[in-house]
């Protein structure tokens, strides 16, 4: 039993897992760049994990295997982390409290929380990608909320929406002046409303309404885009574990920063370095 726990907490196992993870992500890069599986990754970005395994619209088998394999390797890493942390805690209690080792232990625990929150975000909440709406239209969310697009405020020439981002100049497109107004209502009652700009979403509880981009409108009468207001492409997401990841991640960075300062080693054998 002791032998198994030693093996599960060993640094050798950690390095093996890290190598496997590196290979796994390299494989992921190759898969995501192939035309065959690119669509699968689009599906992964627009829905949550339960939908990836649906029989009708799910992922290709190879991608399912890739994701399951990733989860298995991460699970082994989690076991390694738990055993390793436990051994370290015992050492600290029994032998001696060394401050920088304690900091390192905390960093590892926080890393575990971040990874756990990350994993949870694949399963919890919901995600509606690429909702195309025109002014006055609405969209029903999974948990009974109704999203209404009350106004689209676009100050630039809608013609620029047909251009790529590279072609746009600051004079042509004013991202801080273009916005749309949305409301969220439930059971006929409005619960929140606000403006959404490029990179400034509207957040209510765990629900986030994000403006992805403005969409050009095609006018039937002769292609004059300026006549009609542009539409919007929105993303609505609900991620209850987002807060966990966003609060623990900076703790991990600060922890590593403190560890760096505590263990910053000055050169000891300066004799070896002779100034010319």
């Amino acid at each position: 039993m002791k032998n198994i726990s030693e093996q599960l907490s060993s640094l050798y196992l950690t390095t093996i897992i890290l190598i496997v993870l590196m290979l796994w992500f390299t494989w992921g890069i190759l898969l995501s760049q192939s035309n065959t599986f690119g669509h699968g990754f689009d599906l992964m970005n627009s829905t949550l994990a339960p939908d990836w395994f649906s029989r009708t619209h799910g992922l290709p088998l190879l991608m399912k295997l890739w994701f399951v394999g990733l989860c298995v390797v991460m699970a082994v890493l989690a076991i390694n982390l738990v055993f390793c942390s436990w051994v370290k805690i015992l050492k600290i209690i029994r032998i001696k409290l060394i401050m920088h080792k304690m900091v390192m232990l905390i960093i590892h625990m926080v890393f575990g929380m971040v990874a756990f929150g990350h994993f949870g975000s694949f399963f919890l909440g919901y995600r509606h990608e690429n909702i195309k709406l025109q002014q006055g239209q609405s969209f029903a969310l999974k948990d009974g909320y109704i999203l209404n697009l009350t106004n689209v405020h676009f100050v630039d020439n809608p013609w620029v929406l047909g251009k790529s981002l590279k072609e746009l100049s600051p004079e042509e497109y004013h991202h801080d002046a273009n916005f749309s107004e949305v409301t969220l209502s439930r059971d006929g009652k409005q619960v929140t409303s606000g403006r959404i700009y490029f990179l400034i979403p509207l957040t209510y509880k765990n629900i986030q309404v994000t403006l992805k981009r403005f969409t050009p409108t095609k006018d039937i009468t002769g292609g004059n885009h300026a006549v009609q207001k542009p539409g919007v492409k929105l993303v609505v997401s609900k991620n209850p574990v987002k807060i966990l990841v966003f609060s623990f991640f900076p703790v991990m960075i600060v922890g590593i920063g403190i560890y760096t300062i505590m263990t910053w080693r000055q050169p000891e054998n300066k004799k070896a370095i002779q100034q010319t």
Partner: protein
Amino acid sequence: MSGLPYSATSVRQSALGYRSIEDMKNLIIVGYATSYFFYAATLITYLLRLRIPWRYLSIIALTVNLLVLLLISISSDHFPFFNVFECLLFVTFILGGLGCFCSQTEKHRLDVRCWVWIEILFLLTIVLFFPKEPSFYRPNQTFLWVVLFHGFRNLALATMLFSAAHFIRFRLESRRRQLRNYIFLSGRNFLLLTTVFFLCSEYSGMIWCQRGWGDFWHWSPTFFQSTLIILCLMFAFHIPGKNHRSDDIRSVIGAVTVLLMLTIQVTKGLS
């Protein structure tokens, strides 16, 4: 829709400003060539052990590098972090600063400082194959988290290159045990600092992604590449053992990680 900013006036202003933009571009290219020359001169004088000239030349090279970065910022109205040209010039400036002020001259000719100058020239040579102009206007270039993402990432690349200079020096030395306390540990210190900067960049990127796409993670090659870099850094710190062989492996991984990071940065520019 009144008072539209896309009027004919702005087009005329753009036409009038075209000339000065071209002048600015030429000035930036001249500045780049000048800093390249002075960095090369610094390396040569450093190898020849001309103590006073290399010091002056390195300061001139750094100053010219800084001036080019300022020119880019003024002409484009954004920080010089975004395309390969801007990014690598920023990295050379930070790396040059670290080489000047955070390392020492050793008896050995190919010391850490020398490797820093070689790395700088390598980066400036990569730049030769890319357009030497400020990046295209993107609406997100003034967004705080986007700026922090790119800024920290470039900072991480610079400190990682500095760390790699220590590891290369360590690996090339036959009497490595004697150098462990100075060269290897300095490399390890800067690799830890790199990790902090890189994670700061990742955190900023997560906020950017959350605000722009409604989620902090995306199943895409760019996210996988970032994860790969983090895994490489984790790998470098998790090599078991406290003997010289483990140090050898750590130094190799530390040096390889910088190549991976640089490749990712450059291939992004190509795409």
